[in-house]
Each structure stands twice: as structure tokens, then as C-alpha cells.
């Protein structure tokens, strides 16, 4: 299983802060996790400004996700 978290406007669109997904052995890309999450939630999340993190680090959508990882999707940050 991987732990998928959503933050801010992405969290509000999907309606929950986190879901758990089973992923194929050998790992998937972040983009594939996003597609799986969209299917699970029934909400499209494709967004030019969507960002992703794996295990608390910023990653690109081509990044690889392994079983047990924590993946997060969120809009561009606006702190400071």
C-alpha cells in the first residue's frame, strides 16, 4: 500500500485528506499514482499547477513510487 495525502485546494476538491492505494510490484510513477487516486476518488485532479512529493521531498511526476511510500499532491505553495 502507499499512503496518498492531499493538501489545500487539492484536499478540498477530492474531499478527503488521504487515501491508501495498492500499487503493482516494482513500483509506479507519481503520474500513475495520481491517475489511480483520481479513479479512486472519482474526481479529476489533472492540473497544470499540481505539485507532488514522495516521502516528504519534492519530486517530478516521473518520479518512482515504491510500496510503503508516502505520496502527496498539492497546489503551488503560498507560505511566507
Amino acid at each position, binding site marked *: 500500500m502507499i499512503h496518498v*495525502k492531499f*493538501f*489545500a*485546494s487539492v*484536499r478540498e476538491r477530492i474531499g478527503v485528506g488521504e487515501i491508501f492505494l495498492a500499487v503493482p510490484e516494482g513500483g509506479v510513477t507519481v503520474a500513475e499514482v495520481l491517475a489511480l487516486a483520481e479513479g479512486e476518488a472519482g474526481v479529476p485532479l489533472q492540473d497544470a*499547477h499540481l505539485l507532488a*512529493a514522495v516521502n*516528504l*521531498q*519534492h519530486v517530478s511526476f516521473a518520479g518512482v513510487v515504491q510500496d510503503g511510500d508516502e505520496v*502527496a499532491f*498539492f*497546489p*503551488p*505553495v*503560498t*507560505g*511566507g
Partner: protein
Amino acid sequence: MIIKVQQEDFEPMAEMAAYPVDAIAGAGGSVTFIGTVRDYSEAADILAMEIEHYPGMTERELERISAEAARHYDIIDSLIIHRYGHLAPQDNIVMVAVWSRHRAAAFDACRFLMDVLKTSAPFWKKEVTPAGVRWVTDCPGCRAGSREGHTHAPYSHTHS
């Protein structure tokens, strides 16, 4: 290097005064940025600000950029405090303090930390206005700290 991500308010100078003396021995000066909640935005009065963050990743990112600042600039130490939760206008949101022997490095590093924090630390602001709540969207102009007017989608606003 000290990083604090907290809900509570903070007193910038009390935080600096309480900074471990040994960590900043030899400093000739400090540069401190303090960011506060404004009572207006591009389009509306601001009644309050809600800040969401990503616990764990936030601290990690702030540590990462602090370490990067320490590698790139000749500084002695740095402090970052960032709040989350419910904030009122005029409340402190963030402070970045940098100590150095020569002031140029402190100015450079403080500015670097603010610039990078704004693009990498996972915080999201939501403005509470008379017309309702709305997420603050990333603004490249704000991100660059531009003092010139600038516009961006989707709110297509201009800072005067």
C-alpha cells in the same frame, strides 16, 4: 540552525534574544525578515488568514533550505519560524533571521531563505474575506518579491 513550525504567535526579538549565544558568537550583525498578515489583498479586505501545512515535510524543507543557505553564504547561523492555523491581520506569519560576520552575507542569505521558502515550503494560505474564503494562489510576481505591478491568472490581479 533552528526551525520552528508552530501555531502559536511569536515575538521576533524575544526569539532572537533567546538564541543560543554560542551558536552566534562572532556575529557582527543580523538581518531579520518579519512577514505579517496584511488587512487587504488584491481584491478584498482580509478578515483572517488560515494557513495549512504539511507536517513533517514542512520542517524538512525548512531544514534543507537552511542548510543550503549555510553552504552558499558565509553566515554564522539562521533561524526560521513559520506559523500555521488561524491568523488575524497584523499577526506575524514568518520570521527569518540570519547572523553573519559581514552584513552582505546576512542580507543575501535572508533574502535567499525567504525566496526559496515561498516556492518550496509546503504552506498554503486561505484568505477569509467579507465575500467568503479563497485560497491564495501562487503568484510569480509575489514569488519574485517584485515591487513592480504584476498580474497573473487565475485572479489576474495587479499589485499597485
